[in-house]
């Protein structure tokens, strides 16, 4: 019962989506639309589960006064403020997602700077990691290095500035970068995409047919 019903649900929902693709007529397309709406709601609950878990873990740290519990207080308080303002539309009449609301004020002055700075920080780590890892020890590494070099330089104004004096346009860095992106890169990306597709198709079939059951966990 604990395993059979979930396997049945997976099989039914998966098969409905496959049939609806080949027969986009009632009742299959209607069931597909219905399932899509349900999917959005249940997936949203999955995110809520993650957030609740975050609160439980950090609440427990505060309760036990574990090491660094003060940081857990910051997580809980900042969550409550942001979620409270956004959910209960504090300070906004229509939607809190409109410009000029307190929610968007926090978004632009807290959430956005933090997100972009955290990702900008990676620029330094990528630079230091590549300095250590990028040694052209063999042909493959040299190819990777060369492609990265041309793409990086070919996409900025200084790249074209450096090679603009060359009369042959196909030797300009931006032209080389565009060619790398359009042909050798595209060829490999297509091979990867086809490989991924075949992997996903086989995994999906295994899930729908009940061969792959690891998502059900133990017991």
């Amino acid at each position, binding site marked *: 019962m604990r395993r059979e019903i979930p396997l049945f649900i997976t099989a039914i929902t998966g098969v409905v989506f496959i049939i609806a693709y080949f027969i986009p007529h009632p009742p299959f397309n209607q069931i597909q639309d219905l399932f899509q709406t349900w999917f959005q709601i249940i997936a949203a609950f999955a995110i809520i589960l993650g957030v609740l878990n975050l609160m439980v873990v950090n609440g427990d740290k505060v309760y036990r006064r574990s090491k660094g519990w003060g940081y857990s207080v910051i997580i809980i308080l900042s969550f409550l403020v942001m979620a409270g303002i956004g959910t209960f539309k504090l300070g906004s009449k229509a939607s809190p997602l409109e410009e000029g609301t307190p929610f968007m004020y926090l978004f632009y002055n807290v959430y956005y700077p933090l997100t972009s700075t955290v990702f900008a920080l990676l620029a330094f780590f990528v630079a230091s990691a590549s300095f250590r890892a990028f040694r052209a020890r063999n042909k493959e590494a040299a190819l990777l290095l060369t492609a990265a070099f041309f793409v990086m330089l070919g996409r900025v104004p200084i790249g074209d500035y450096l090679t603009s004096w060359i009369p042959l346009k196909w030797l300009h860095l931006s032209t080389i970068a565009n060619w790398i992106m359009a042909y050798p890169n595209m060829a490999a990306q297509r091979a990867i995409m086809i490989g991924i597709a075949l992997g996903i198709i086989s995994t999906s079939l295994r899930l729908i047919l009940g061969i792959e059951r690891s998502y*059900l966990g133990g017991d």
Partner: protein
Amino acid sequence: MADTIGIWVAALLTLFIFSFLYKDNPLYKMAEHLFIGVSAGYWVSYLYQNVFKPNLYNPLFHQGKLLLIIPLILGLMMVMRLFPKIGWISRWSIAFIVGITSGYYLITYLQTNAVDQVRASLLNFSQINNIILVVGVLSGLIYFFFSAEHRGVLGGTAKLGIWFLMVAFGASFGYTVMARISLLIGRMQFLLGDWLGLLH
């Protein structure tokens, strides 16, 4: 006034995060934990306003669409995961998500990533670039074929596939670096322009 406070808060948080470049410190940790809490709060609000309210709350309680009780129950069953003794009940909701994702991905990946990509690779050999593209796709696919040992012609073609893959990885790396650098430039423009007013 509110804008000025906002800019100062944003600038200080930016500097707190950048302080990690020196070493891990309490200011960085504070900003990091603030980031986690605010992100969670943002997504809860976003989901409530864009998913729960228009797709569940309003249709169920104001328009009487009682069939929506099913996803509501399945959603609540998902949350039961928090309680270890009855956590198994969330399998029904997970099974629904897995089933829909499998059915959807099976079709869309078959269409867009397999059939369409193969179709786009069926080119005539009138141009050298077309030959490079077809050879690159085939050799790349042969590299991913692990059912036979990579020796002889197969090994040579797989080796060629590796070279194409290396060029693609290099290009992807270059793009990633460029994206991160542009974010860094954005933050610097904010600090030097919006905050300190040194850029005009």
